[in-house]
């Protein structure tokens, strides 16, 4: 099987659209609400999850034939927890501001259902390369939803993007909608994204 066969393409693109972890599988909603009040932490969170799902998938996939069945969930958790700890340490060292903003949510990537879901459902049964594609796809599928929600919330909530105020909008009172910065609005925006996604794709 070639590296970029039709099947592998589907493994990669599925989670980006039709099989999106957030809008179709409704996984990882908790952190999607928490870190999306601004665009920058949303992107960092999305990338961190992408990196972690990709590598956790590869590691588990390489080990899959050696993992004792009875402790497989524990092994998956240890791999994920190790990667998350490494990412959080690296962020603290090289992106301190962002790590302060993300605070506990980096640690909570461990509990992100996308990770365990992909490990158990995909990496345990497929080779490393397919698993890597699946991990990157799932992570990016999660990331783009965060970016959309973060974009809307930062624009309407603080009239800025990436922390830079947009001069035309700052004069308009509507663009300082405090409600947008609260998690409840993230859920509603998430709902709107799911609505749009389903009506475009005609999913029942």
């Amino acid at each position, binding site marked *: 099987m070639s590296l970029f066969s039709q099947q592998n393409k589907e493994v990669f693109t599925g989670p980006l659209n039709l099989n999106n972890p957030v809008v179709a599988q409704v996984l990882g909603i908790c952190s999607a609400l928490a870190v999306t009040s601004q665009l920058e932490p949303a992107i960092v969170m999305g990338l961190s999850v992408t990196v972690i799902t990709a590598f956790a998938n590869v590691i588990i996939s390489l080990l899959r034939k050696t*993992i004792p069945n*009875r*402790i497989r969930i524990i092994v998956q958790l240890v791999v994920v927890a190790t990667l998350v700890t490494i990412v959080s340490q690296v962020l603290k060292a090289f992106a*301190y501001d962002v790590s302060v903003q993300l*605070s506990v949510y980096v640690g909570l990537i461990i509990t992100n259902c996308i990770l365990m879901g992909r490990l158990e459902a995909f990496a345990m049964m497929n080779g490393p390369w397919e698993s890597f594609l699946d991990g990157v796809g799932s992570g990016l599928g999660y990331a783009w939803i965060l970016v959309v929600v973060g974009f809307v919330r930062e624009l309407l909530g603080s009239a800025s993007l990436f922390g830079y105020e947009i001069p035309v909008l700052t004069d308009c009172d509507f663009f300082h909608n405090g409600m947008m910065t609260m998690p409840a609005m993230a859920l509603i925006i998430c709902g709107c994204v799911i609505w749009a996604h389903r009506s475009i794709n005609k999913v029942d």
Partner: protein
Amino acid sequence: MKLNTNSNVYTIAYASVMVIIVAFCLAFISSALRPIQDDNVANDKRGQILKALNLRDVKDVQAEYDKVLIKDIILNVNGEVIDSVGGFNVDSKDIQAKDDAQKKLPLYVCNVENDTVYVVPMYGRGLWGGLWGYVALKGDFQTVYGTFLSHEGETAGLGARIVEPWFQEKFIGKKAFTDSTYTEVAIGVAKKVEDPASQVDAITGATLTSNGVDGMFKSSLAPYQKYFSANHK
């Protein structure tokens, strides 16, 4: 030979080896990155002190801090200088020590726009967790030059708003103590402002956080009483 991955011995051996590898790997990364992380934390603290001095948009925090700071002295509750350097590195536990005799009180002496300004670190408790901040006083130890406030995890949109500059800037120009004996801290946050010269309006919906900020000002400034009354201009 095919391994029996379901045997007890294999399972236990697998788990043990995995744990050892992971532990080694994490310990290595943690110790390798520790110095950079400590630097970041210290730099963040410097940035907070600069914010209390109303220097809010500083690019090179380290350079600006070095320029502004004259010295960081350590005091005790009797107003004596224990050490003329090293206030920056005093542990927050020593600042808040229950026993007055063991308190180590840092005081940052700074020079901003040719004026000597004194920065006092503050620690307190909010609704969900710790609060901290810095208050900068002018040479009379009475007039507030600026403040910085932060928190561990106050409610977003309510208590968490104490980090926003509009709230912190309300304290500028307030009177910190009732009189020049410095026995009673006047500055604080009140739901119903009775003394506009030293009180600031509380944040609506964040009564407990506001009370926490109020208590933080009172408990953190009080130990400096003897030094202030002996050294004020």
